[in-house]
């Protein structure tokens, strides 16, 4: 479709229409196909006929018809095979089904919970979320994760079958389970963002489309759960991190570290939005890990330069974050903050236990940080050796080039 306005409209409606069909008729797997066909029909008809008065109702009507067709052929096939598909329902199955609810109900949130169900492996959660909630095609998702489309097709249909076979009711998770399930949803969105922001392999360091999609989904989640501090924190974290993207790579695609970035190229609008979000969330209550990370990103984004950064504030935030998350990468960032707010030796002293953590065994970052702190401490020979060692451990080419360049710079001086 030519107009991106109509395209945005369709992508926003896709999860709502899918949610409405699954709520009314069940059949998550077939309903997903039916919605894709309804979207295609809209893309073909709306430019010629105009956008209908109620686009959502139009899509639900067309999607329902397509679902009926798909069910007929599926049931016919099943009869031919003489194998009745049966499922053992959960205990509450025969409770009255929630029928089409009040107009304007948005089932996107239920769909998100369904796609991020803990029974699915993370790779499937991500693929299914991008497809069912994000409205991306299988080919687009395959490209984003650098796997063949056929592989992604298999992954998505397996995930849909697992959901269909699990007999999960189409409803929000029950109260006690909800915080845990929401954490899973936010984690999937976070993984999509980081996959887009720092590709783990391949020649290009960022895959902007995935980051943009993650931000769009996080925005949606925040809109659906405005009172949830972590949903707001995650959106703020993404905005504040993504704001630096224009300055994060140089003209040759090389990685530019935070201290060398041209801060005038940061996205001021995204920073303002992220700061406003995180300020409001922090004022509301006990901060969770996404809020703390967003607060740290906000301190960085608001600093006029690397040197003028409020390092004691960053150290304090990392100390809070360490208390609630046992994560060696957080510990590593905490060590850097300590080095910057006190002195490099204090930071270096924190590194040995982090390096000994088995989770960091094949990770170049501890060695890279040691190199950086040794350099700050006025020890160029040890720093150079550490940069070279970190370059050998790094997997992405831009990271290797960056670390080798740092080492070479110390040779010349």
């Amino acid at each position: 479709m030519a107009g991106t306005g109509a395209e945005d409209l369709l992508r926003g409606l896709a999860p709502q229409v899918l949610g409405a069909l699954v709520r009314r008729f069940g059949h998550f797997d077939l309903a997903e196909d039916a919605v894709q066909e309804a979207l295609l029909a809209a893309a073909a008809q709306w430019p010629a006929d105009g956008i209908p008065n109620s686009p959502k109702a139009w899509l639900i009507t067309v999607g329902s018809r397509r679902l009926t067709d798909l069910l007929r052929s599926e049931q016919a096939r099943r009869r031919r095979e003489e194998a009745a598909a049966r499922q053992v329902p959960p205990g509450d199955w025969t409770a009255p089904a929630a029928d089409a609810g009040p107009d304007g109900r948005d089932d996107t949130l239920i769909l998100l919970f369904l796609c991020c169900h803990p029974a699915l492996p993370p790779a499937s959660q991500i693929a299914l979320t991008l497809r069912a909630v994000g409205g991306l095609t299988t080919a687009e998702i395959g490209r984003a994760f650098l796997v063949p489309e056929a592989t992604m097709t298999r992954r998505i249909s397996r995930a849909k079958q697992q959901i269909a076979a699990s007999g999960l009711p189409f409803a929000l998770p029950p109260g006690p389970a909800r915080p845990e399930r929401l954490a899973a949803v936010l984690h999937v969105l976070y993984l999509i963002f980081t996959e887009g922001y720092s590709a783990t392999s391949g020649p290009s360091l960022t895959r902007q489309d995935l980051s943009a999609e993650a931000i769009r989904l996080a925005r949606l989640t925040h809109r659906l759960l405005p009172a949830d501090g972590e949903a707001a924190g995650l959106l703020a974290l993404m905005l504040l991190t993504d704001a630096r993207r224009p300055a994060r790579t140089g003209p040759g695609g090389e990685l530019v570290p935070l201290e060398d970035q041209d801060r005038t190229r940061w996205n001021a609008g995204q920073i303002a939005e992220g700061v406003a979000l995180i300020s409001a969330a922090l004022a509301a209550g006990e901060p969770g890990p996404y809020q703390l990370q967003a607060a740290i990103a906000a301190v960085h984004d608001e600093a006029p330069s690397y040197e003028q950064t409020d390092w004691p504030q960053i150290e304090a935030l990392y100390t809070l974050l360490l208390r609630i998350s046992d994560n060696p990468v957080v510990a590593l960032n905490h060590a850097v903050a300590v080095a910057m707010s006190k002195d490099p030796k204090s930071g270096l002293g924190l590194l040995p236990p982090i390096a000994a953590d088995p989770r960091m065994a094949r990770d170049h970052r501890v060695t890279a940080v040691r190199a950086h702190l040794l350099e700050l401490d006025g020890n160029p020979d040890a720093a150079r050796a550490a940069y070279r060692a970190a370059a050998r451990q790094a997997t992405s080419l831009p990271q290797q080039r960056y670390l080798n360049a740092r080492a070479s710079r110390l040779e010349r001086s």
Partner: protein
Amino acid sequence: MKYLILMYGSQQDYNEMAGQPAPGQPSWTPEDFAAMGAFMESFGKDLTDSGELIDAQGLIAPVHTRRIRLRDGLPVVTDGPYAETEEVLAGFWLVDCESFDRATEIAARLTGCPGPDHVRDRAYVDVRPVADSQEDLGV
């Protein structure tokens, strides 16, 4: 006294109304739909005016049916249990009127519902008295 007037249709009937007739069968025309709509509206209005109508509902295509039964002590759900040509409940009117004969008179009006000839030829409605109390059912 309450009576339930039941109307039947198969998945094939729904397909024809959706513009997907079985091979060799004529499809519904827009005029057929308009005539049926006008008939049903006036039928419902008359029953409302006389105060006899309690409720009337039409059902979505049979393909969307879930059947639940006990298997090895567990409730088991089967999707889409009907064959395409199997006639099943498609809609109903619940009326409260003075006699079975009056309910039959009401139901008989439905044979005048417009539609393609082959549909009118095989269509039928049932009228069944509704139990007034549990005693009627002997429980």
